């Protein structure tokens, strides 16, 4: 008998410990955001129920032996929740995860807002998928991207999201104009506008004519190599090299053409440049 006493004591202690240990609350492993559920309890008397979540931390009095109702608004935010029940000198707890609900919005980052035409993979679209409570939807979803330019065929591509993000690169069109860039998912639509602008001027050509005041210099319509007219306001530099020295003027393009009157009297060689692009040279004679 005495030999078995320590073992019996040990067994008794283990059983007591097990019985006294915080019994886990029976909570589901995962719940979708905004879904109500219940937590069963046993025993009698009142207890305090704590629900600790990512965006809510509440406590309320409940009755042991009755189911605890967890309301939809208490589990709107995705993340890990702790449910704690304290009453009758004991404490029980359980943790569960709230997962994002169905997609309801897209955060669509589109870059750049302006891009020269003909740029390979120059347009970037990144979307993050969220549910109606701004939880990231990690479930893979098919996000469709559309790029449409006036007068040109639309380009579409579907990308499967991973961990809430879908992204792609697209080429800019060869024709200048505002392009509508859209991301869609299950009827959710986000639109952006990408300005496709003319690239660097190409084949800059000028003509020069002497008049009473000096020399009137004018460019041919300034276009890029794809034939798109450059934006109004693009600066063109006229340079006149004559006997009196060098004369320069920076003139903005207006309605495809840049024009300036250079007040030079003698013969001169006139050249043109825009940015780092050079144009032709024209020689003019002296004033009559």
């Amino acid at each position, binding site marked *: 008998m005495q030999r078995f006493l320590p073992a019996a004591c040990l067994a008794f202690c283990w059983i007591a410990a097990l019985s006294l240990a915080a019994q886990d609350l029976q909570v589901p492993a995962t719940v979708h955001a905004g879904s109500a559920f219940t937590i069963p309890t046993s025993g009698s008397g009142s207890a305090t129920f704590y629900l600790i979540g990512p965006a809510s931390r509440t406590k309320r009095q409940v009755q042991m032996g009755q189911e605890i109702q967890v309301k939809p608004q208490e589990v709107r935010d995705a993340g890990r929740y702790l449910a704690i029940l304290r009453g009758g000198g004991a404490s029980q707890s359980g943790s569960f995860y709230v997962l994002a609900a169905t997609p309801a919005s897209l955060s669509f980052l589109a870059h750049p807002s*302006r891009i020269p035409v003909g740029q390979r993979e120059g347009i970037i679209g990144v979307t993050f998928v969220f549910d109606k409570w701004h939880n990231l939807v990690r479930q893979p979803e098919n996000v469709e991207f559309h790029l449409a330019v006036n007068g040109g065929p639309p380009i579409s591509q579907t990308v499967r999201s991973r961990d809430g993000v879908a992204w792609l690169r697209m080429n800019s069109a060869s024709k200048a104009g505002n392009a509508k860039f859209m991301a869609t998912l299950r009827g959710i639509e986000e639109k952006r506008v990408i300005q496709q602008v003319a690239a660097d001027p190409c084949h800059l050509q000028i003509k020069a004519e002497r008049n009473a005041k000096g020399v009137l210099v004018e460019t041919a319509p300034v276009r890029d190599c794809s034939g798109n007219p450059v934006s109004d306001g693009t600066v063109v530099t006229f340079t006149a090299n004559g006997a009196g020295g060098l*004369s*320069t003027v*920076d003139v903005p393009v207006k309605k495809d053409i840049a024009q300036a009157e250079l*007040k030079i009297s003698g013969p001169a060689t006139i050249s043109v440049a*825009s940015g780092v692009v050079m144009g032709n040279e024209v020689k003019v004679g002296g004033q009559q």
Partner: protein
Amino acid sequence: MKLAVLLVLATIACLILGFVFPVHQASTPGIVSGEALPGVGGTGNTPEAAVRSLLGDVQAHDWNQAYSLLANTNDVDKEAFIHDINGNYGSLRTFSSLEGSGTRVLNQSGDQALVRADMHWSTAVGPIYEVRELKVVQQGGNWKVVWPLEKQATVPPQVVPVNYLRWDVIYRGAQDDWGSQNVDSPQVRIVSMNAVQHGNTLVVVGEVVNEDTVPAFVDMNAILVGKNGQDLDQENSFDKIQHTLLPKQVSPYRIDFPGFNLSQIKSVRMDAKAMLVPASADPVIAVLDQHEQENVLGSKVLSGNLLNESGRTVNIAQVLATYYDSNGKVIWVSDGYVDRALLPQTPEPFAVDMPDNTVGKVQSYRVTVNHYIRQQS
């Protein structure tokens, strides 16, 4: 008591000595050369004294006294004289004060003389040096200055249509959702960079272009990286750049690192920052008749005329000159402010320094103009 009497006597003696033996060409800041008290004493006993006296009155803003020292008051209106020397139309000169000056008689015969006046103006953007050669004549026993007033061209009343492009910017609001459409900063590119040694200053020069289709406010920073890869110093271009660049416009830049030597550095890290800003393509300023010449002091300068082709007065103009060698590499950038306003359709001369170490190496140059216009209320 004895000490006090001694000090008074010494002061009187110094005063007398100062009038009898004036100092030539001393450019003491704040005090006109050769005079103990500005505007006091010399009323024209010598040609040089007459000029010094005039400059003293200018410094003291005593326009009545200064005007009374002119020989050609029949030809020079008092208002015009004041505007000529003190500036008008909100020009840089109107924000300046005569800090000091020096005088030298170039030649003198009979009752005429030619006196060179070197004037040092203190302005909002730093010192400006002006040299004038003034003819001085003797009238009724006193020397008086013939003021060389250039008749300022008057712009005839007219309507000048302004139909150049203007850009405004509407940004995304603070309340807008993350991911909402916004406007991107302009794309600028550094076209060239060259580090040169100028005395005990390491200077980084080059050009930057606005590659975008919208105006950009550009700022240039450079970081010197030492032989061990550590950052030695960081500097900014400040006003040695044309900050507002229209689409496809090219600006030079210059960044100075005083006290550094080329042998200390491994590389230079450049950083061009560009911001989207409202801007206007107006005014257009032509740079005419650019040529190299020597100024009256014998220094090489690049000079020419600025022509404001718009209908608005440009209050302050800054000229930036880029010098290229035979390979088209930027070897220097110099700048200078024009201290007179650019009136519409009216040429205004300018001159900027060409440092000695660039003379002989310069194959070509390009001049651009920064402009500042006072806002209309």
